[in-house]
Structure formats: structure tokens, C-alpha cells
């Protein structure tokens, strides 16, 4: 496709989009007259909710508010189960796209990752499932956001900013805690089937029931999409048909393995046994034992296996086992002891067009003992302390051999960690609360780490809260970097990468329909380690890592939530991110182009949620637009296929429109139809034969999905 054609198609797309918006506006006006406010129907909806869901319903307050707008000493966003259903998300990735300050890149390749306030890389986000960490430590290749059925999620909590002092190392950009459903939440069954363009196929079956005290949850999940990647069609002069399978692993279809899971909660006197068995092209088994009277003993075991494709493969196995004991010594002091074992095995093989194989492998086994104590000194003062000892056996290699490489002694590292953290939460007055925190880590591989945390919350009145948040985190160097650390340019020692963040957050409820949240932030990064190309090195190490020193980013997040009418709610968020962090990260031009959406100065997100036809249909429109990066001049992207002399890239735009039936039409069967229009501006220079076309190519996509849910 010529560059000129691309440009003209862009104009057509704008016209179509305008027409869609006019249509949407008209629909909003026409159908609103049919809407009715019926208290009974609202209560009927509430009756179906669990206790947790009821406590997540946003309500109009009329009573006293002993608390301010938010108790959390952090910048936190909660997406409720109700919002999950109304917005028609199909994966966690869709959900994250709606959060302020978060941008996804590479959505249409297997190489998907999120960027949070300019911080790139999946492994910088601490991902928790029900409070338990789940981080694929490699940070790329594994698209964890597709692995979990959205139907199994009850709600999601997202904390933006580094909270290493509380959650430990690698809590760099934020924390995402996904709360999953139990049998009681499902109370019956739910079968979902999705089909869409780009061979998107998703099937989920969930069954859950609480019988007496017995809670049972079963789920089956299958997800497949080739993400519309057709190299032969898009690049006929570059990719011959017989080369279809010879991309890198990033260019291959995303095949998420079948997933089957069964959770059973068995009552036993005052105790509870939680048993989870799951198969995800591997085995996941979790056993947990809870005692009703606070002391808790739990054991968990999980394993995941990621399927290989033909020539290019990726396997990812993780194993977690933990044993914990928790006890309330008295009304003021509680302690918990935890033994945790984690095993991680990651292997990837690429076959390049040159015929070269390249293997990447990482393995890690971690043994940890952790002791926590929580002491309620007074009603206004609570102290938390934690101490951990951890030993990690780690291996990493990169090799260019046709056969699977074997580990050498030089590939191995043993690391010991000692970690101590303290946190004190003090209510100075009824209106003012502060949280002080400090974390110290000593390791055998890099210098000691000492990071602070401070949060101050001031509640002016029931509708105004100001938070001052100073937090920090650090990222341990990648195992691959550590093992071949002598290759780091200009230095032989390795330091963790630090981030110090200052965030001023102000939340205001203007009236029962309108609220705003505004944050002004500044992030200071230290020891920014970046992979850079170095042609002077022999293969397979044509690149190395460089300590780029300090970097910073700063900006503003602003979210407006408004219920503009009885059946119409909306949000508008705007983020501005500036600073030199992107410039420093852009070690080579290909990385720069792939990160283009994340590099933008301006990020707009708009969500419109509208009930029409007497509340029988729910319409959700989401628009993400990023744009206006001064460095997007054509000379910097010269040679890429979409580049036209004199033409500047305007931005990156995604529009999702989803229409879903509601229980007012049928309480058993829900049908949704989604349309996505994406213009993903990326570039590729064919002269770089070692790089994969699909990841760095300009892709403009329109896709659709049809989804049917049956609830019984």
C-alpha cells in the first residue's frame, strides 16, 4: 500500500467517524425520551449483587460522612463489576486502556505492553490476583492480559505510582489488583461466546454456586486471535508466502492456551479449605486453608505453561507455593509468617529471515521467609513492619544455535536479599491523616536500597480531598543484564533502577452528578538502564545495555466523571506527559517508533455510557486519542513505508463502540456487538532485516466482535 493511499484512507476514516458520532448524538437525543426511572428496577438490580458488589456501588450521599472521599493514601481507581459489564470489555487489556495515565502499545501483535505515565515495560507494573503477585518476570512475549476471562473478574483496583515501600521491588509504575469471583458471586452459570474479525474467538463457561457453606466455582476459557497480522498481504514485496511462519515470535498469532479451572471452598467447622485446580496447557493447583477465628494457614500452588508455535516458540512456566500463618495476639497486635517458594522458567526461540536462530532463556528459583507485624498503637496510630529473607538462584542466556542451548556455569547467579519495611499511619486530626514509610533492602548483587514513602491526606469537607503523595520504587536489573553485566557500556557494576514520584491529587465532588480528580506528578528516575544496539559486538550480542543516568517525567492527569442525564454517564480523562524519559529510552529508532503512542504529549480518553430504548440497550463509546509529539517529524521516520515527504504524524486514535442488551430486555441472554476503529501508527524500515515487520509496521485496523452471554 502506497503512502499516498494511506493518507487518503485516513481522511475517509475521519468522515466515517464523524458520521458515527453524529449518529450516536442523534441516538442519545431520540432514545432518551423512552427512559424511565423506576426505583423497583434499581432495587431488583441490587438484590442480585453480592455484599462486595453492593459496597462498590457508587451512590449519592445524603448522610453524614465520617470519612472523606477516599481513605486510601494513594492515587487509586476502582473499576466495579457493574462497569466491567456495561463497557463490554473483552480482555483486561481493554479495561486498562480506559484507566487514566495508561496506554497500550502493540495491541495488534503478540508484543503488547502498557505504558504508565511514560514508563514503558510490563514488568514495571505489579500485577496482583486477589492480592497475590503474578508478574511474568520477562516483561514481554507473554500477553498476560489475554489469559484471564473478563467474566471471572469481580472488580479491579489500580494504584498509579511506585509503591515499592509497601509492595517491594519491581513495583515501579503502579499496582493492579484483580479481584476474581467466587461461586457465590456467580450463583448459577454463565456461558459466553465471542467471534470477531481477525479470527477473534473467545469462549468462556463459568459455573458457581454456594450450597450451604460450600462454595464452588468452575471456569473454562479459550481465547484465540491472529490479531489480523498478515505479513504477506501487507508487505507482498517483502514477505513471500513461504515466509509466513518465519517471523519472530512477536509476529505470530496469539494463541492463549485453553484454560480450565475449578475452585471449591469446603466448610469444616469454623474453618475453610480453598481448593483450586486449573489447567492452562499445564497445571494450576492451589490449596488454601482458612480458620474463621483470624489465625490463617494457607498453601498455594500455581503453574502456567505457554504454548509454542511452529518455528518460533515461547514457553513460560511459573510455580508458586506458599505457607502462611496469621494470628491476632490481642486486639492491638497481629502477626503473620509466610514461607514462599517461586519458580520461573522462560524460554523463547526466534527464527529470523536470515535463517539465524536465537534463544533467550531465563530461570529463577526463589525461597523466601517473611514476617509481618501490625500494631494498632492507638485508634489514631497503626504501625506495620515487615522483614524478609530471600535467596534466588537465577540463570539467563542468549544464544544463536539451532539446537536448544545448555546452561553453562557462567549463566548462573545466586542472590541473597534482606528486606525490611516500616510504615506508620497516623490520624493527626479528624481531617488529616499521614502515612510514613521506609523500605531498606540489602542484596548480594547491588548496592543497598533505601526508599521512602510519605502520604498526607487532608479532607476539607465531605466533597473535597487533597492528597500529597511522595512514593518510590525500584526495578531490579533484568537477569539477562546481570548475567552478562560485563557488557554494560562504561561500567561493570549494576544498580537497581529507581523512581521517585511526587503526586498532588485533588478530588472534588461538585454535585451528585459530577466529580473531578486531578493529579500533578513528577517522576525522577535514576540509573535508567536501556538496551542499545552495538554493532561492534559479535553475534548474538549485537546490543548491549547502557546506564543512561537520570531522567524525569512530569505531567497532569485529569478525569471528569459526569452523569449528564438519567441514563447517561460519561468520563473524560486527559493526561499530559512530558520529560526526557522517552528521549533516553529511545536508544534506537525502531524502539522509538514502536513506542509512539506512549510518547505523545497529550492523551485523551472519553467514555460514554448510555442506556436507551427504555434501558434495554447499553451503549458504550470509548475513544482514545494521543497526539502532538514534537519529535514526530517526517525526517525521523524517513524510509518507513507510511512516510510521505512533508507529512507529519498526527496521532494515534482508537475508537471502540459497544452495544449490549441489558436485563431489561432479557435477564438471561445478553448480546453485544462491538466495533473498533484503530489507527496504529508505526513504521518499519525494510533494510533492517533482523527486525520483525509486524511489530514495527503501520497498521490501520477496523474490527468488530459479536458476543453472546447466557446466564442461568
Amino acid at each position, binding site marked *: 500500500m502506497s503512502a499516498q493511499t494511506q493518507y487518503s484512507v485516513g481522511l475517509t476514516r475521519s468522515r466515517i467517524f464523524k458520521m458515527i*458520532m453524529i449518529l450516536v448524538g442523534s441516538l442519545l437525543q431520540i432514545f432518551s425520551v423512552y427512559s424511565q426511572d423506576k426505583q423497583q428496577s434499581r*432495587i431488583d438490580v441490587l438484590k442480585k449483587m453480592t455484599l462486595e458488589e453492593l*459496597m462498590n*456501588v457508587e451512590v449519592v450521599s445524603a448522610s453524614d460522612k465520617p470519612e472523606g472521599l477516599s481513605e486510601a493514601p494513594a492515587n487509586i481507581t476502582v473499576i466495579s463489576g457493574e462497569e466491567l459489564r456495561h463497557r463490554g470489555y473483552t480482555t483486561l487489556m481493554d479495561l486498562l486502556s480506559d484507566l487514566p495515565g495508561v496506554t497500550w502499545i502493540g495491541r495488534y501483535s503478540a508484543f503488547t505492553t502498557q505504558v504508565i505515565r511514560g514508563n514503558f515495560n510490563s514488568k514495571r507494573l505489579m500485577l496482583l490476583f486477589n492480592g497475590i503477585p503474578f508478574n511474568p518476570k520477562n516483561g514481554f512475549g507473554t500477553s498476560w492480559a489475554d489469559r484471564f476471562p473478563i467474566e471471572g473478574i469481580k472488580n479491579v483496583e489500580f494504584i498509579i505510582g511506585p509503591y515499592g515501600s509497601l509492595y517491594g521491588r519491581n513495583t515501579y509504575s503502579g499496582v493492579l489488583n484483580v479481584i476474581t469471583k467466587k461461586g457465590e458471586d456467580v450463583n448459577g452459570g454463565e456461558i459466553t461466546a465471542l467471534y470477531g474479525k481477525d479470527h477473534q474467538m473467545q469462549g468462556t463457561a463459568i459455573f458457581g454456586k454456594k450450597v450451604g457453606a460450600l462454595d464452588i466455582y468452575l471456569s473454562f476459557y479459550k481465547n484465540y486471535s491472529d490479531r489480523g497480522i498478515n505479513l504477506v498481504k501487507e508487505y507482498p514485496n517483502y514477505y513471500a508466502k513461504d515466509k509466513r511462519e518465519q517471523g519472530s515470535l512477536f509476529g505470530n498469532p496469539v494463541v492463549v492456551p485453553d484454560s480450565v479451572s475449578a475452585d471449591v471452598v469446603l466448610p469444616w467447622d469454623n474453618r475453610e479449605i480453598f481448593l483450586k485446580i486449573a489447567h492452562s496447557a499445564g497445571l494450576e493447583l492451589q490449596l488454601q486453608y482458612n480458620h474463621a477465628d483470624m489465625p490463617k494457614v494457607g498453601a498455594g500452588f500455581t503453574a502456567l505453561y505457554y504454548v509454542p508455535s511452529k518455528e518460533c516458540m515461547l514457553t513460560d512456566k511459573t510455580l508458586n507455593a506458599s505457607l502462611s500463618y496469621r494470628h491476632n495476639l490481642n486486639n492491638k497486635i497481629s502477626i503473620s509468617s509466610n514461607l514462599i517458594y517461586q519458580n520461573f522458567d522462560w524460554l523463547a526461540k526466534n527464527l529470523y529471515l536470515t535463517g539465524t536462530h536465537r534463544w533467550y532463556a531465563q530461570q529463577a528459583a526463589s525461597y523466601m521467609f517473611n514476617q509481618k507485624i501490625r500494631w494498632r498503637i492507638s485508634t489514631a496510630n497503626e504501625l506495620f513492619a515487615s522483614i524478609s529473607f530471600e535467596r534466588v538462584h537465577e540463570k539467563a542466556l542468549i544464544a544463536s544455535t539451532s539446537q536448544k542451548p545448555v546452561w553453562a556455569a557462567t549463566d548462573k547467579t545466586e542472590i541473597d536479599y534482606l528486606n525490611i519495611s516500616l510504615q506508620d499511619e497516623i490520624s493527626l486530626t479528624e481531617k488529616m491523616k499521614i502515612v510514613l514509610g521506609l523500605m531498606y533492602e540489602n542484596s548480594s548483587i547491588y548496592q543497598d536500597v533505601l526508599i521512602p514513602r510519605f502520604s498526607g491526606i487532608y479532607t476539607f469537607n465531605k466533597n473535597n480531598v487533597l492528597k500529597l503523595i511522595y512514593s518510590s520504587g525500584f526495578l531490579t536489573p533484568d537477569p539477562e543484564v546481570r548475567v552478562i553485566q560485563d557488557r554494560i557500556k562504561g561500567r561493570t557494576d549494576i544498580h537497581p533502577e529507581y523512581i521517585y514520584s511526587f503526586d498532588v491529587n485533588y478530588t472534588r465532588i461538585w454535585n451528585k452528578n459530577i466529580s473531578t480528580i486531578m493529579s500533578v506528578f513528577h517522576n525522577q528516575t535514576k540509573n535508567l538502564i536501556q538496551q542499545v544496539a552495538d554493532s561492534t559486538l559479535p553475534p548474538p550480542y549485537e546490543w548491549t545495555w547502557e546506564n543512561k543516568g537520570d531522567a524525569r517525567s512530569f505531567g497532569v492527569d485529569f478525569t471528569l466523571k459526569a452523569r*449528564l442525564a438519567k441514563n447517561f454517564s460519561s468520563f*473524560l480523562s486527559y493526561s499530559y506527559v512530558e520529560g526526557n524519559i522517552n528521549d533516553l529510552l529511545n536508544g534506537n529508532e525502531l524502539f522509538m517508533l514502536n513506542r509512539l503512542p506512549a510518547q505523545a504529549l497529550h492523551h485523551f480518553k472519553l467514555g460514554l455510557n448510555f442506556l436507551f430504548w427504555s434501558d434495554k440497550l447499553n451503549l458504550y463509546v470509548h475513544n482514545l486519542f494521543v497526539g502532538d509529539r514534537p519529535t514526530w517529524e517526517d525526517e525521523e521516520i524517513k524510509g518507513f513505508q507510511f512516510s510521505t515527504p512533508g507529512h507529519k504524524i498526527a496521532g494515534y486514535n482508537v475508537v471502540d463502540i459497544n452495544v449490549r442488551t441489558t436485563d431489561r430486555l432479557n435477564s438471561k441472554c445478553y448480546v453485544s456487538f462491538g466495533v473498533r476503529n484503530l489507527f496504529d501508527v508505526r513504521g518499519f524500515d525494510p533494510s533492517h532485516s533482523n527486525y520483525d515487520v509486524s511489530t514495527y509496521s503501520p497498521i490501520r485496523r477496523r474490527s468488530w466482535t459479536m458476543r453472546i452471554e447466557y446466564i442461568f
Partner: protein
Amino acid sequence: MVNHTKLFMLIVWTALSSVSMNIFAQQTEYDVKAVLLWRISRYIEWPVQADLNDETEPFILAVIGKDPFGDSLKQAYSSGELKIKNRKVEIRNFSDITEIDKCHILFIASSEKKRLTQILSKIRGKSILIVGDSRKFGEQGVQINFYFAGSRIRFELNVKSVAAAGFKIDYRLRSIARIVGGGKESTQ
């Protein structure tokens, strides 16, 4: 950039063009609280003295003071679909302390702030679950006191008062409550 600006303005127009519609009726506070009472009661075991064995007798949910629920309680419980302890729920209103009669849940409205101590004294020793939604009610002995965290409803649990009245609280309920009061509570 120009095209995108126009598009964006168009979307904003789309949003603003609907302002003329009626003000959205959010889930109201007392609809949620009415249903929460039912949900919460599932995690509480009443003492034997409450005499809840006879399922033909109604479960009495009473409000004392200026009733903030409006029609919410009636709408929630009148159909008989929501049962507490397997009994149909009957709603009663007491306008004065002297009217307090047999009931299983007593919601103390904020209008009774000044008479709270008297009310608590009157029902002391009875197997009545005391609920409220006013500042400092929890600390003063109201067993379950709703409050707001942002725009979401939370509740305080006075463990000392609960234990004294002989209620057994499931640990799951306790785990999501903000504990106030003191003493060692009884658990199920």
C-alpha cells in the same frame, strides 16, 4: 491534527448535547442500604434468645426516628423475595423510644443522635441488632454503622457491643468492616 481536533470536538458535542435530559437517578443511598441490611444479616447469627426458630413469624426490621429510607425498605422487602433468617421481613417505624417493641434489627436514624444513649439503654440485653449511619454512632455502641468512603458505602462493626449482645459474626463480614470498639468478639 486538525482532523482529530474536529473529531474530538464532535464527541464532546455529542456528550453535551444530551445535558437537556433529566438528571440521572443514581443508585440512591438508601436503596443500597436497604439491600445491604439483608446481605449483612446472612453473615450474622442471632442469639438463641431472639427465638428465630418459627419461620412462620416475620422478621421485624424497625426504624426509629425520622425514616431516611423513604420507600426503599418497602420496595426491597414487600414482595417477600428477600427473607432474613428464612422469614418474611416486616417493616415497622417507631417515632419515639417508648414505642420500641419487639424487633430483630433496629435502625437508628440520625434524628435520634441526642437520644442515642437512652435508646441503647432501653434495648440493652435484648437480642436486637442495632444499625445506624451517623458519625460516631459506631464508637458509642451501635453495632453496625454505615459510613461513606468516597461515593461507596462501608460499615463499622462495634465488636464489643456485638459480643455483649450475643451475636456471632462471620469472619468474612468482619474482614470487610472497619472494627471499632474493643473487647474480644464472638465468631462463628
